[in-house]
C-alpha cells in the first residue's frame, strides 16, 4: 500500500494537551513532597490536581509568537510618540503626577508580580497551573518593562521620573504598594494566588487600570494608552487564572473554605488601601477628568464586585469583611489622601496642588454629601495660607499604619470628623493601624508584620532623622521633584515648550 493517509491536523484541544499536560512527568527518584515543599503548609487540601481546569488553552509556541508581535507593535508606537514630541500633546503637566505615582508605585508591582508568578509556577505541582503561572510571570515582566519604556520619554523632559527604583524602595507613599506585593510574595503559593491572581487581578484591577487608561486617553498621553492596550490583552488570562484558582481550592475540599475566606477578607482590604492612591489620581490629578472615584467604584466595585460575590456565595463565601467600611470610605478617601499629599509635598517625588475653584465645583457636584461639608473649608483655609505667603506645610511625620503603611489620615467609618486609629500591643511593643481591617490582618499574623520595614521609622533608624540626607537617599531633588505644582520647573517647561510648539515665536 503506498496510499498516504493524510494525518488529521491536531485540534486546538489536543495541541494544547500535547504542549502542556503532556510535558509533565511523575517523579521517580525524588519524593513529591521534597519537590514541592510549600504546597501543603498553608493547609489547603488538594485531592486531585487533574481537576484543575486550564482556564485558557494557549501553548507556549503560540504565546511567544503573539507576545513578540505585540512588542514589535508597541515599540513602533512608542518610538513615534517620542520622535513627534508626544509629551506636548498631554492636556497639562499636572497630569504627570499621576504618571509618576504609577511609575514609582505600580510598575514595580508588575515586576513583583512577575517574581511571584515565577515562584508560584515552580511551587504548584499541577502542570496546567505551572504553565499558566509561567506565562503570567513573563507577561508581568513585559508589563513592567513596557511601562518603564513608555514613561522613559517623559524622563527626558520632566522631573520625578529619574529615580523610580529608589523611590520604590525608599520613599514613603510607595511603600504602600510595595508592602502589598512583598506581603503577597512572602506568603505561600495559594495565598499568593488569592492576593495577586484573585484580589488584585480580578477584584481590583479594573478599578486601577480602566480609570487610569481612560485618564491617559482623555489627557492625550498616547504612550500610556499604548501600554494599556498591550497589557490589557493579557489581563483576561490573568483574571481567569485567579478565578480558576479560587474555584479549584473551594471545590477540592470543604476545609479550604475558611482559609480562603480569611484570605479574601485580608486581600480585599489590603487592595482597597492601595487603591487610595488611585482615588486621589482620579479626583484630583487628571486635568481632564474621566469619572469620579465614586462613579468608578459604583461600576467596578459595587456592580462587578457585587456580581462576583453573589456567585461566590454559592460556595458559601461571603463578601469581604471590610466591604461595608470600604463603602463608607468612598466619599472621603480621595480628599483625605490628597490633603495628606499636599501637606507633605516636600517629601513626594511628584507635585500636588490646591484644586482650582472650578475643580472644587466639580468635586462638590460629584460628592454632594461630603465635599462642601468637610473638605472645601480645609482647601479654602490652605488657599488663604498660601495667598498670605505662609503655605501650609506639615513637617511632622505621619503615623504610619503597620499593615498598609499609609499614613493614618482616614476617618472613622461612622464619623468623618474623627481620625481613625487603632493599636495593638504585641510582645511589649505598640503597633499602630489606620483601620479595623488593617489591625485584624496584623493580629492574625503578628510575627509577619512586626518585621515590616516602615519608611518613617527608617528615617530615624537609618538616617538619624536628617531630612536632607533622607532626600538624597531616596533620590529626591529638593525644589525640582517635590512641592507645589504651581511654580514648579515642570509647569514652567511645559508651558514654554508647548508655547513654542503651538506658536510661531
Amino acid at each position, binding site marked *: 500500500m503506498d496510499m498516504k493517509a493524510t494525518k488529521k491536523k491536531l485540534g486546538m484541544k489536543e495541541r494544547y494537551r500535547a504542549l502542556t499536560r503532556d510535558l509533565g512527568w511523575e517523579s521517580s527518584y525524588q519524593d513529591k513532597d521534597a519537590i514541592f515543599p510549600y504546597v501543603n503548609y498553608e493547609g489547603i487540601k488538594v485531592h486531585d490536581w487533574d481537576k484543575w481546569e486550564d482556564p*485558557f488553552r494557549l501553548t507556549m509556541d503560540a504565546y511567544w509568537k503573539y507576545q513578540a508581535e505585540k512588542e514589535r507593535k508597541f515599540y513602533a508606537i512608542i518610538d513615534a510618540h517620542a520622535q513627534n514630541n508626544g509629551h506636548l500633546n498631554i492636556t497639562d503637566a499636572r497630569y504627570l503626577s499621576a504618571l509618576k505615582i504609577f511609575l514609582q508605585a505600580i510598575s514595580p508591582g508588575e515586576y513583583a508580580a512577575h517574581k511571584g508568578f515565577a515562584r508560584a509556577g515552580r511551587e504548584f505541582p499541577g502542570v496546567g497551573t505551572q504553565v499558566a503561572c509561567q506565562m503570567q510571570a513573563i507577561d508581568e515582566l513585559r508589563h513592567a518593562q513596557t511601562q518603564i519604556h513608555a514613561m522613559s520619554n517623559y524622563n527626558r523632559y520632566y522631573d520625578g521620573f529619574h529615580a523610580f527604583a529608589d523611590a520604590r524602595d525608599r520613599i514613603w507613599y510607595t511603600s504602600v504598594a510595595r508592602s502589598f506585593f512583598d506581603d503577597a510574595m512572602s506568603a505561600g503559593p495559594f495565598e499568593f494566588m488569592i492576593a495577586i491572581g484573585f484580589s488584585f487581578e480580578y477584584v481590583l484591577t479594573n478599578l486601577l487600570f480602566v480609570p487610569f487608561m481612560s485618564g491617559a486617553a482623555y489627557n492625550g498621553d498616547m504612550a500610556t494608552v499604548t501600554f494599556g492596550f498591550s497589557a*490589557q490583552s493579557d*489581563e*483576561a488570562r490573568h483574571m481567569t487564572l485567579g478565578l480558576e484558582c479560587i*474555584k479549584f481550592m473551594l471545590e477540592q475540599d470543604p476545609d479550604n473554605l475558611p482559609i480562603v475566606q480569611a484570605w479574601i477578607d485580608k486581600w480585599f482590604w489590603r487592595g482597597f488601601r492601595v487603591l487610595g492612591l488611585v482615588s486621589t489620581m482620579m479626583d484630583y490629578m487628571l486635568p481632564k477628568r474621566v469619572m469620579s472615584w465614586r462613579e468608578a467604584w459604583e461600576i467596578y466595585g459595587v456592580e462587578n464586585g457585587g456580581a462576583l460575590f453573589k456567585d461566590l456565595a*454559592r*460556595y458559601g463565601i461571603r463578601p469581604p469583611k471590610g466591604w461595608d467600611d470600604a463603602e463608607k470610605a468612598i466619599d472621603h478617601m480621595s480628599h483625605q489622601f490628597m490633603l495628606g499629599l499636599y501637606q507633605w509635598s516636600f517629601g513626594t517625588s511628584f507635585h500636588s496642588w490646591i484644586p482650582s475653584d472650578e475643580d472644587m465645583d466639580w468635586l462638590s457636584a460629584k460628592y454632594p454629601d461630603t465635599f462642601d461639608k468637610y473638605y472645601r473649608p480645609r482647601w479654602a483655609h490652605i488657599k488663604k495660607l498660601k495667598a498670605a505667603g505662609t503655605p501650609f506645610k506639615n513637617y511632622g511625620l505621619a503615623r504610619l499604619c503597620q499593615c498598609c503603611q499609609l499614613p493614618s489620615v482616614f476617618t472613622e467609618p461612622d464619623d468623618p470628623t474623627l481620625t481613625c486609629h487603632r493599636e495593638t500591643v504585641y510582645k511589649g511593643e505598640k503597633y499602630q493601624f489606620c483601620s479595623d481591617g488593617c489591625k485584624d490582618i496584623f493580629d492574625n499574623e503578628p510575627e509577619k508584620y512586626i518585621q515590616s520595614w516602615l519608611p518613617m521609622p527608617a528615617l530615624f533608624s537609618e538616617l538619624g532623622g536628617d531630612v536632607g540626607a533622607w532626600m538624597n537617599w531616596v533620590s529626591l531633588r529638593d525644589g525640582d521633584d517635590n512641592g507645589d505644582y504651581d511654580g514648579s520647573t515642570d509647569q514652567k517647561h511645559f508651558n514654554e515648550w508647548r508655547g513654542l510648539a503651538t506658536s510661531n515665536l
Partner: protein
Amino acid sequence: MSYELTIEPLGQTIEIEEGQTILDAALRAGIYLPHACCHGLCATCKVQVTDGEVEHGEASSFALMDFERDEGKCLACCARAESDLVIEAEIDEDPDAENLPVRDFDGTVSRIESLTPTIKGVWIKLDKPEGMRFQAGQYVNLALPGGIGSRAFSIASAPSVAGEIELNIRIVPGGEGTTYVHEKLRAGDRIRIAGPYGRFFVKKSANVPVVFMAGGSGLSSPRSMILDLLEGGFEQPITLVYGQRNRDELYYHDAFLALAETHPNFRYVPALSHEPERSGWQAFRGFVHEAAKAAFDNDFRGNKAYLCGPPLMIEACIATLMQGRLFERDIYTEKFISAADAQQVRSPLFKAI
C-alpha cells in the same frame, strides 16, 4: 437579513442577524463561547473563521493583531457576519449532542388539557408521519398567530413518540402568548413549531447517577428526559425532586408515583412550598432545594444534576448542590430566561450555570 453561522467542533448551525456579533448569536442560541470583556480588548473570545467574511468591528489591534486577521482569526464579541460563516471555537465536543438540525414542522393541535389551574397540556400532532427528531430536554419555538410571534416551550413528551409533541404551558399574567394558548387555542387548530433547540440533554455517556430538580412549569424537560432514560434501560439511580406551591399545581404526581413503583432505580421526591397546613400532605413541605438537600443528606457527590425552572429556584438549587459538593462540571440548567434576567451583570466565575 440573516446568515447561517456554523460553529465547529460542535457542528451546530444557528442564525446570525446582520449587525449581530458572533458571540451574541452563539450565546442566544445556548452555545457558550469563552468571553470576558465583550468589547474587543482581551482576546478571550478569539475564534478561527474557516469560511466566510466578517467585519472586525472595534477589535483592538493588540487583542487581534494584523497577522491574525490575515490568518482568519476574529474576536467573536465584535465580529459581525458579512456572509454565511463557519467558525472554529475552543469549545469541547459534546459526545452526547446529536446536533439535530432545526426545522419548521406543521401540525394540528390534537388535544388540550388543564393539568393545573395555571398549566395547560397541549398536544400537537405533526403532519410528517416520522415527526420531529429531538433529544429529551430540548425545546421548540411555538409560532402563534396575530403578530404575537413565537415563544419557547420545552417538550414534555419522550422522543420515542416523535409524531405527537406534548407541551406544558403555564400562563404568564399579562403575557400575550401564554394567554392566547390558554384562552384561544383549540383542538383542531393548525399550528407550526420550529425545533429542536437547546443543549439541555442528559449526558448519558458519563453513566453516573442523575438527579433532576424541577419547579413551576420546569417539569417538561425532566419529564421527557426521565421517560427517555427509563425506556432506554438506563441503570443508574435516577432522582426527581419536583416542587410546586400546592397539591393542585403538582401535575403528573400520580404518574411519577407509578413510575417509581415499577422502576426500582427511579426515586420520586415531591415538595410543596405553600400547601395548607392541615391538607393531609404527607411528603416534604418546603422548596425544591431544601427537599433535595434532605433527600441527599447534603452530599451530591458523584451525581450529575439537571435543573429546570424559574431563575430563583435554579439559583437556590445551584447553591445547595455546590455546598453539597457538586460543581459546575456536573450541573446543567435550562433557565426560562426573561429579558430582565438576561440584563443582570454576571461575573465570569461560572460559564454555564
